[in-house]
Every structure is written in structure tokens, then in C-alpha cells.
């Protein structure tokens, strides 16, 4: 079972520039969460802060009792072995073949025999669809392949927490769909806590149990996916619809004058009824039931009273067809 990640009051600045402030959220154990946000809102910085690569000035990130911000370097190093991080561009070692890249964590942290390493690595290579390329160097393959190889490397130690930095960038829609399915299947198999940082709406709509959004140096919301998907907050609805009209401008925020003019002109199209929530992806046939989804169901049912009306209806709808979340 995955590990819960608790983020409390995190604030990060680079010099004078504040990236985000007072971000608090909990990634529930074994569930899939997505962090949305326009480009340049510090999503990647958030990911790197969770794993301790960047040190926020304030706040804590608690994993198994270890604070990834302030604990000793040794504890942080140990805790990092629980993580699998998929970098935006793969971050493969340029001097090693794909096989050696993916075998690297195994060779560093385990005492497995070379034959066993080979078996595990080839299995992961097969999962991400790179069979036949294992001998190539990262410089000799396409960006999408590097990304998938990065995922394979993140998976090789059976991590408890998987962080994905924009898994879709550089992939075509079909491969993105496959990757979404792959992430859900993985979650069903190893029950890891997952956090996906993206601005891809397909992934956001179909993959996560929970969703959050960063905008304008703040965490707008974080909660069950239905809350964000049915939200009326202008930032969220603009982002999910991919419209130009709304608070998000080309350079992150619009100035007040433009915004006022927009409201005067009434360019925001009227909403036509509540947004429909696309059903979440299910594990492929033959995969075990997602334990995270079962736990989430209990958790969400318990917090039902605090949720907005629209989210409540959407949640009840999604759980209506068959108990246990096993839709067909």
C-alpha cells in the first residue's frame, strides 16, 4: 500500500520572486492525484519540493514521519528510495544505454544478480513499449521514447510514491491515452500513491481520484476530482474549457483593465447546465481492483457533507451504476 504525503504550509521563492505560498494538501495513500495549472505556475517546482530537491523556505512535507524539507540529508536520501520520479524530459544518463539507465537504481540499491536485474528491466521495458531499443543511447531515440524510458526507470524499484512531471508532453494523443491507462494499471498493481503534474485536460479528466490546481501563487483547490471538474471558480472553469476569456492571461494573470473590459463585453459564454464529468478510467481487464479507489470511496462518502452540491451529485452518479466502482 502506498504512503500518504502530507504537505503543510509550503512556501517557495526564488530570490524575490514568490512561486507559491502556503500550499497545504494531503495526497491520500494509494490514490492518484493530479496537479493542474497553467504553464509557469511552479508545478514542477512543487514536485521537486516534495522530493526534497528544492528547499522551500517555509512549511513541511511529511512522508513516513520524515520531513523532506528540514530533516537530515541521510533521512531524506533513505526516504527517496520510496519514490519514483519521472522527469519532464526523462533525465536519462547520456553516457549509458537505456538498459543500463533502467538498471541503475537496481544496481545501486539492491544486491540482485545480473540475470535477475535483466529480467526485471526487460519486464519494465516491455511495459512501456520500448523492447528492442534497450541497447540505444538516450541521444539516439525520440523525446517520447526518452520519456517512457524515464518512466520505466522510475518504476524499477517498485516505488511507493510515483511522481510524474508532465507525462504527456512530447507524446501524441494515442500514446497519452495509453500512458493514462498504464498509470491506472500500475496503480492497481502496486497500489502506489501517485501525483501527476500536467496541463493535459484528457489526463486530468480521466485519470485522477483527486485534483488540485495551482494558479497565481496559490493552491486554488485540492480535493476529489468531481469538486474541480464541476467547479464554478472562474480560473478552474476557464482552464478546463481551454477558453481565452477568464482570469488566466498569456502572462499568467490578466490585468484588471482587460478583465473588466471582458466582463463588460460579456464574452464569457453562458454555461449550458452543469458540466458532465467523464467517468474515470478503470484498470484493464485482468488487473486487480484498485485498493486506492475502494479507500477513496469510503473517504469521499465520509466527507460528502462538506462538498458543493454539484460535486456531490457527480460523485453519487459515478458510484451509482455498480457498488465497488467496478463499472463496465
Amino acid at each position, binding site marked *: 500500500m502506498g504512503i500518504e504525503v502530507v504537505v503543510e504550509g509550503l*512556501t517557495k*521563492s526564488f530570490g*524575490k520572486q*514568490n512561486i507559491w*505560498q*502556503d500550499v497545504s494538501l494531503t495526497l491520500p495513500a494509494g490514490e492518484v492525484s493530479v496537479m493542474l495549472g497553467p504553464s509557469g505556475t511552479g508545478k514542477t517546482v512543487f514536485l*521537486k519540493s516534495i*522530493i526534497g*530537491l528544492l528547499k522551500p*523556505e*517555509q512549511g513541511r512535507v511529511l512522508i513516513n514521519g520524515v520531513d523532506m524539507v528540514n530533516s537530515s540529508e541521510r533521512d531524506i*536520501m*533513505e526516504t*527517496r*528510495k520510496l*519514490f519514483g*520520479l519521472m*522527469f519532464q*524530459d526523462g*533525465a*536519462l*544518463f*547520456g553516457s549509458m544505454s537505456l538498459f543500463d539507465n533502467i538498471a*541503475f*537504481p537496481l544496481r*545501486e*540499491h539492491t544486491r540482485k544478480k545480473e540475470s535477475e536485474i535483466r529480467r526485471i528491466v526487460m519486464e519494465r521495458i516491455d511495459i512501456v513499449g520500448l523492447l528492442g531499443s534497450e541497447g540505444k543511447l538516450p541521444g539516439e531515440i525520440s523525446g517520447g521514447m526518452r520519456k517512457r524510458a524515464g518512466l520505466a*526507470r522510475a518504476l524499477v*524499484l517498485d516505488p511507493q510514491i510515483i511522481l510524474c512531471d508532465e507525462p504527456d508532453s512530447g507524446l501524441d494523443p494515442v500514446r497519452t491515452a495509453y500512458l493514462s491507462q498504464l498509470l491506472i494499471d500500475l496503480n492497481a498493481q502496486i497500489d502506489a500513491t501517485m501525483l501527476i503534474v500536467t496541463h493535459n485536460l484528457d489526463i486530468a479528466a480521466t485519470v485522477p481520484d483527486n485534483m488540485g490546481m495551482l494558479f*497565481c*501563487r*496559490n493552491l*486554488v*483547490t485540492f480535493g476529489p476530482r468531481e469538486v474541480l471538474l464541476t467547479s464554478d*471558480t*472562474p*480560473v478552474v472553469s476557464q482552464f478546463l474549457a481551454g477558453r481565452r476569456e477568464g*482570469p488566466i492571461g498569456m*502572462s*499568467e*494573470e*490578466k*490585468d*484588471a*483593465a482587460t*478583465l473588466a473590459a471582458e466582463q463588460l463585453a460579456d464574452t464569457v459564454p453562458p454555461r449550458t447546465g452543469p458540466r458532465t464529468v467523464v467517468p474515470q478510467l478503470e484498470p484493464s481487464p485482468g488487473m486487480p481492483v484498485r485498493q486506492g479507489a475502494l479507500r477513496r470511496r469510503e473517504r469521499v462518502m465520509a466527507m460528502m457533507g462538506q462538498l458543493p452540491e454539484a460535486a456531490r451529485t457527480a460523485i453519487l452518479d459515478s458510484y451509482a451504476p455498480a457498488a465497488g466502482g467496478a463499472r463496465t
Partner: protein
Amino acid sequence: MTAPMPVRPPEPPEKLPPPPGPGATTPSAPEQRRPSRLLAPLRETGKLFALAVAVARAIFRRPFQVREFIEQFWFVASVTILPAALVSIPFGAVIALQVGSLTQQLGAQSFTGGASVLAVIQQASPIIVALLISGAAGSAICADLGSRKIREELDAMEVMGVSPIQRLVVPRVLATMLVAVLLNGLISVVGTLGGYFFNVIMQDGTPGAYLASFSALAQLPDLYISEFKALIFGFIAGIVAAYRGLNPRGGPKGVGDAVNQSVVITFMLLFFVNMVLTAIYLQIVPAKGS
């Protein structure tokens, strides 16, 4: 300021905290003291020392990266041996010729051997080692680490729970140290032979006097300090190269600048350290026969 200040939209009253105005944008500002510009060099020096300490501690931490160490050792040796040998012959010759003509004027020709050998072993040899280790090996190490850094490879390594200092820096520093010591031996031998050859063949010195004065003036501690210097130089060259490589400033050009700086900084440090070590050595080790 021509562009209007970005102002947050008036709506979302309940979900979003109050708009961060110009004063509120950096709530942590009062706690962070603005670092003084004057102290910047001290800060860099401090970080360099911190890295040196971290590396020194990581040397004793298991598992030791044998494979990486051997690869790096081989690499450093292969880029330095030939230039070292080629540089040391003329260097030994220059010293022999200079000392030879000077002693001739003073009428102390029989001491040419001792004087030139001491100069080669104590000064010339460690300096040549320093130049080659920092110029050939240090620059390569700095460029390698720097490009790994900007490609996020080092981040990826840290994320996998592997310390780049232990995995990459320690083998490189140890390799430069060991190569420096061995190279120093090679240069001493080649330089001395070169000096002998030029003194005996070109200046009609007598082989017997050359060798006799050699054993009259030179002593074993001269060799020890020479090797000790080389060891320290190797360490400094490795640390400085690693430090600049681990902290390049922005993009590929930053890596180029870092390599440049690493070589210049190492040169300056090594000449300074050489002076200090020589002064201390001459104070504490009595000259032979005195």
C-alpha cells in the same frame, strides 16, 4: 515600467486568499536577510570548503565506487602522461642549463647536479603536475559534471537516493590525487634525466660530480614533500573542478564558463598553496648538512 502591474481578478471571494499586493508578495522577506554583495566571494569559498569536507567524509562511506574510480583513473592518466613527459624534458633541461651557467659563474660547478635536481623535484615537478591535472583532467571533470547537471542527470540521481558526491565526485577526486602522485614521480625521473643529459652532454659537466653533488645536497624528505604537494594539488584540482561543475550558472554557456573558471581558480590556488607548503617545508626540515 510601461506594463501595468498584474492585478488579481476581483472575484473568487471564498476560495482564494486576499490578493498579494506589492508589499505582501514576499511574506518571507523579513526573515530572509538580503545577503551582502561584498560577502559573495566569502560565500563561494565557504561552499567550496563545505564540498571539500563533504567529499572527505564521503571517501570513507561504503559502498566505494571501484568501477567509476578505475575508469576515471584511467581517463585522467591517459590525458596527462604524455604531455607530462614531453613537458618535463625541456623543463629539466632549462633548469639544468640555467643553474649550470649560474654555478659556472660562481665557480661552484660541482654542485650543479644537486641544485638542479632539488629545483626539479621540489618545485618544477609539482608545478607541472598542477598545470596538467587542472588543465587536462580538471577541465574535463568540470565539463562532464556541468553538462550532467544542466541535463538534470544529477537531480535524477539524487531522486533515486544516490548521492552524486559519493557516486561521481569521490572517485574523480581520488583519481586525480592518485594520478597526481604517480605523475609527480614520473616527472621527477624524466626531469632529472633531462637535466643530467643537458648538463653532461651540452655543458660538458662531469657525470661523477653531478651524481656526487646530488647525494650531497638532496635528501629523502625532498622527495616526500614533492609527493605530498602533488597529493594536495590533485585534491584541490579535483575539488575545484567538481565544485564549479556542480554549480554551473544557467545553460550550456554556463558550463563553458564554469570550466574556464575552474582552471583559473585551480591555478591560482595551487601556486598559492605551493608557496605556503614550500615556506613551511624550508622552515621545519633542515637542509642537508646544516
